[in-house]
Structures are given as C-alpha cells and as structure tokens.
C-alpha cells in the first residue's frame, strides 16, 4: 500500500470510529485542585474494586470546574465538579441556561488550612489578630488607622519571635484564599478593632470596612503565591524566615520539612478540626450532574463509594491523607442514596 493510500485509509478509519464511538464508559471529574488528591484516591480504589473503569479526574480549580460542568448535558460534558467552596448563584444560573437542571451537592468532609514555617525555625503561636496586624495594608495603632509598618513579628505581638515578617499567602484565584480572607484576615480585623474603625471612618458601611480589611500590604512582606503548595514549600526552603499557608493534608505529608503554627493555641489536626476547636477550616464539596446518573455507567456507584464510611469515614484512606471527616456523613450518604437534588440557593 502506498503511503498516500495508507494515510487516507487511516484517517477514514479514525473518522469512522469517531462517528460510531460507543457511549463513554468512564466517569469524568474535574474541578478543585484541593479536592483532586482525594478524588484520585477514591477513583483509584473505585477502579480496583468495581467492574467499571477508573474515573478520569482533572484539576484546574473550583470555579473553572463548576463552569465546565455547567456547559451542558451530554457525553462530551463532565459528570462531576469538585469544589472547595460552595457553588455560587451565578453558576447555578449558568447551569440552568445550558439545560443542566438538577445538581446534587455532596459535602464529603472538611479541609484545614494551616500556617507553617521551616522545621528548624522558631515556634509561632499565632492568632488571627497577629496575622492581620502583620500582613494587612492598614492596621489600627493607638486608636488610629495607619499604614502597616511592622517589620518584625515581635512588633506585632511581643510574645512572638523577633523575626522578619514574610508571609506566602495563596493567590486570589485559589479557593484557599477565600477561607484565609474570611476566617483569618477579617476575623483578625474584627478582633483587633480595626473593623470598627474602618466602619466608623466610612459612615458605618460594613461592606466597605470588610473590603478595607482584606487589603494586604504590598511592600513585599505578604507575597501572593499563584502556584500550588509545592511552590510555597520551595519558596519557604529558599527563605527560612517566611511563613506559608498550606492545606492540612499537604502539611501532614511534609511534617519533616515544616513546623506548624498554632492558631488561638490550638494545634491543627484532623481531630481538632473535626471538634471545631481549630478555627480555619472549610467544607469540601462535589457537584453531580443528575441527568448523567443512569447514563454514564458507574456514576452513581462512584458517588456512593466516595461518601461511604470505607472511604470518607474517620478511619478511611481519605482521613489518613488529611481529610477531616464530616460528622454528618450519614446524612450525606442518605441524600446520595435518594439522589436528592440541591435546594435552590437563596
């Protein structure tokens, strides 16, 4: 056969097989890079123990994943979007316009966010107010709002070591940043009294005050990291004075390199987060396109397997990896079993 004929016939063969392509037989998952390791662990175990092929799991970010899920219904669209934050109203509306009607919301556990420094460095018993006073653009000093000039942690709180302030915080595109802003910065802003001062200065406008709270200093003491936790770890390695923000599971896999800071005196562990003692945590979700259940083989089974005690329970492999098991897992399991769609967001 001449090369020309060979090429033509191969192309024809591919085209033919594409047209007659049988239905997609594996589940496709996309979304949050925080949920990604958990989803791969479940997908791998699912592939080992079930007759279905292993689901394909993609990362890329919570927001991007939800948008991808909301593109429409059909084999060329994904089945599940992992998300480290709750779906927004605009996403639900986007879904509705594209014909993705019912969505199941599955909350399968919690993720802790920890502050950690180099393993050989000093101890940092932090509070939200300390962090706020160290990295915020404007702070309250002697009753007046001033630009943040603190150079060392000891200036922020005399109990902290005299070490230069340098903090690596997740970039704004990360879901982690939302929690950091919400549970640490705004909380610290309120605790230190700056929130009230901001509100008073703006005629009682609390939204404006919150916005001012979340402004971080731009003089190089607070550095946004747009990459992954591995990048933060590499930057910490280069600058031993810095403090980085990590997910609990990442820290647990690198305890030989990182020293974790306490928050309000509580050491972050799976237990302290489950008990609600450690303040900086967030729920993890995935969203299932209901129209695909029964169409894509193994979808229901995968979801059921994900939230089973065997996987997401307190003794399961996910907890071992750093997931804080959801105390209300039984309710989630029941909802998955009944295929209860998400209630409309108010």
């Amino acid at each position: 056969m001449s090369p020309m004929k060979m090429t033509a016939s191969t192309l024809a063969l591919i085209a033919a097989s594409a047209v007659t392509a049988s239905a997609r037989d594996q589940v496709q998952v996309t979304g949050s890079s925080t949920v990604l390791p958990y989803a791969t662990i479940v997908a791998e175990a699912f592939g080992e123990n079930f007759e279905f092929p292993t689901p394909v799991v993609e990362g890329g970010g919570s927001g991007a994943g939800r948008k991808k899920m909301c593109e429409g219904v059909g084999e060329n669209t994904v089945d599940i979007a992992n998300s480290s934050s709750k779906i927004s109203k605009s996403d639900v509306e986007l879904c509705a316009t594209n014909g993705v009607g019912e969505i199941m919301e599955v909350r399968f556990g919690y993720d802790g966010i920890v502050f950690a420094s180099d393993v050989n460095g000093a101890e940092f018993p932090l509070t939200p107010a300390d962090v706020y006073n160290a990295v915020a653009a404007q702070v309250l000093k002697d009753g007046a709002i001033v630009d943040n000039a603190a150079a060392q942690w000891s200036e922020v709180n005399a109990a902290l070591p005299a070490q230069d302030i340098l903090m690596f915080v997740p970039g704004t595109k990360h879901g982690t940043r939302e929690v950091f802003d919400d549970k640490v910065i705004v909380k610290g802003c309120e605790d230190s009294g700056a929130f009230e001062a901001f509100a008073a200065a703006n005629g009682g406008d609390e939204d404006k005050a919150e916005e001012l709270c979340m402004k971080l200093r731009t003089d190089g003491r607070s550095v946004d990291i747009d990459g992954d936790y591995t990048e933060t770890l590499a930057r910490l390695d280069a600058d031993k004075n810095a403090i980085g923000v990590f997910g609990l599971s990442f820290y647990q896999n690198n305890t030989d390199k990182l020293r974790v800071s306490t928050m309000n005196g509580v050491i972050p562990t799976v237990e302290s987060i489950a008990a609600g003692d450690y303040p900086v945590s967030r729920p993890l979700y995935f969203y299932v396109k209901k129209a695909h259940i029964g169409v894509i083989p193994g979808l229901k089974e995968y979801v059921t397997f994900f939230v089973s005690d065997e996987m997401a329970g307190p003794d399961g492999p996910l907890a071992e990896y750093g997931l804080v098991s959801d105390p209300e897992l039984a309710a989630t399991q029941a909802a998955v079993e009944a295929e209860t769609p998400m209630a409309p967001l108010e």
Partner: protein
Amino acid sequence: MTDATANQMPASGPAARSKHGSILVQAPSMRARNRAEARFKAYGLAAIVLALTMLAIMLTTILSDGLSAFRQASLTFPVTLDAATLDKSGNRDVAEMSKATTVTYGKVMAQSFVAHLVAQGISTEGVSEKELAAMLSKDAPAALRNDVLANPDLLGQTIEVTVLANGRIDGYLKGRVTMESAQKDSNISPEQLVLSDALRKAGILTSGFNWGFLKNPDASDQRPEAAGLGVAMIGSAYMMVLVLIITLPIGVAASVYLEEFAPKNKWTDLIEVNISNLAAVPSIVFGILGLAVFINFAGFPQSSSLVGAFVLSLMTLPTIIIATRASLKAVPPSIRDAALGVGASKMQTVAHHVLPLAAPGILTGTILGLARALGETAPLLLIGMVAFVDNYPSAPAEGVLDPATALPVQIYTWVQRSDPAFVERSNGAIIVLLLFLMVMNVTAILLRRRFERRW
C-alpha cells in the same frame, strides 16, 4: 621614469619608518583592531561556555534528583490466602468473591507479612501492627486481588508474592529519608527504618530496576511508589503517530502548492505572513481553539489522544510548512528546468524530481516539529488531558478515543503532588522525555547527514 618612481616611493629612511611603520611591528591602530577581534571571539566563547554551564547544571540537577526513580524497593514474602476470609460464600463464584475488596486483601497481606516476620525471628519491637502494614504499598492488594479473581483455585494456598515497599521505605534505601527526618515525619518512624535494615539483611526487602516506572499507570498521592509512565507513554505515542499522519500530507501539499504552483500575488503573500504568524502563536491558544472546535462543536471525546493530536497538529503544521517550503526552495531551478525541458509535466517534475530531492529536509523539519509537539503541555490543559488517568487506552484504532495523558503532562501533575517521593518521579519522567527528544533529534540529524545533497 625611474627617478620619478624613486622620488614618489617613500624613502626607507628612519623618518619614513616612524610614519608608516614596518609590517613586522604592529601600529597602535592595528593592535586596537586585533584586540577588538580577540574580545569579539571571547564574547562568543563566553556565551557558549555560559550556555553549556547552564545545561550542565540543569542536567546534573535532573539526573541527581531523577535517576533514583529507576530503582525501586520491594518486599518478598509468602501470603496465605485464607479461603474463609476471601470467599465468604465458599462456592468459588467470582461474582461473590469480588465482594472482598482490596481493604480485605490488604489485611490478609499484612497478617501474612507479620506472620512471616515472626517465623523468621525478626524483631518488630516498637513497630505497631498498623505501622507494619503501612510498610507495604497500598497498591499491593489490588494485584493480589486480580490474581485471585482470575484464578480462584489459589484460595487456600500459600503463594510467594513480591510487592512494592511503601514510598518512605523506598526513600530510606535511596537516602531521601533519614533517621533524623523520620523522627519529624508523621508517616514513618525511626523504628520502621531499623526494621527495614533488618528486613534487608534477611533478604525480604530488596531493591531492583524499576520496570514499573515505565509500565505502570499513574497512581494517587498515597502511592507514589506505584506511579508510572505507562499511560503517558502510550498517550504520547498515539499522539505522535496521529500528528505525523495528519500533518505530513497536509503540510507537504500546502507547501508544494505555495512553492510550485501558486501565483505570486498579494494573496499568497498574505497566506505566507499568516503561516509565519501561526508558528509564533502561544501554544495554549491552540488548546482554546481545540476545546471550542473539536470537543464542543465536533463532539469528539474529552481527554482523548485523538483530540490531543488534532490540537498538536494545528500547532505543528506551520513549522512543517515553513521547513518544507525552505527545502523545496533549496532544490535548484535547473532541476525543474531540465525536467520540464525533456517534456515532463509540472506534476511529474514535482513528484519525480523536486520532492525526492527535498525529502531529507522535509523529514528533518517534520521530526523537529514532532519533537516540539511531544514536549507540549499547555494546549492539552484545556482539552482535559491534564488528568488522572489510571486505565490504559485500548489498542488502535478505538484506543485513540480513550482518555490518556502525555509525558510532559505527567511531569506537570507529579510536580504538584504533596508527597516528596513525587519529586524523584517527576525528575525521572523528565529523563525519559529528554531521552525521547534526543532520539528524535539525533534521527533528524542522521537523516539530514545521510540523504542531504548540496549543490
């Protein structure tokens, strides 16, 4: 006449020498020129030295971090397959037996491991049963389960198995994990390391070439020791073959038309400018295009190597067209004139004379284009190929529609994983990718050397 000449010629007196100099002694301006030339050469040499140093630094880091990925620790011990646990119904029905999950098999395996240590008289002091079980890879039970399900007669027997050791134990043998780091590490204790020394002495823990790294599919964050490049290499191979099939005919046809048949006017100029522009477009743009056209509009399956190949083809085509046109241009017009002169048609001239003479150049350009496509991640990001894919794609031709990843994608995903063992894996994958690129580039050079003709 002679007098006049003598008068015009400069006298060879001392005064004249000081004015014009001797050819044996350098004038100051000449010395300055020579110095400038020496400096010019030195700049070039310095640039080369700098580039080579950078290359050497890069290769040393990659090799020192990555070579260890090609060795892997494993444990060998007998496992007693307890029929009562693994087949509760007792009728050897595979459907019933598959209810025993890998968790159950893991427990059976761990029990046999502990029993074997006791039988061998190896002290497990300070290591709990759970920690003992954790020394085995979490990947191990799956293979055992598959074996048993494929051959239910194994139940009740005691078989010798070789399983991967946990990533931390593997790291200890490679020097990545030390007693000091283990003290702070929540995933391994120094006692476990002491035990692994004893296991090594007893010949239970061995280290060998890591075939699994080249064969296995990807593995989750909890099993770095089981992660391999199998799916990525198949995906890359599928895509390279498809890219070749798609780009070569289109690229050659386009170039031949533009070079040999097309009239030279502003339209062909416009096309030419656009092709050059396309060659410089950032590759992620082709990914966006691929998502819109091939997946959302044409409906090809996501994450498949076929869509990946389409996107990479779009990216490679301009490169191939430019290279092909250059080699067509290099064929002297005399060849065409001679062919036309003896009565060949335009098509015969091109097919019988110009193309064969341009073939080495075309091939070289194609291979270099493919090598560039082999190393691309960005366009694959948007079409769902940067993913966790655990199943091998099936054989061609349907296999090109199955989800797959590619070598550079695997490097990218491993770099992001939290377990430190993936650092070694990603560097190992870089070595494999570099080897592939080297083979392709060397082939390109050899082809050019062997077949190129100069006029």
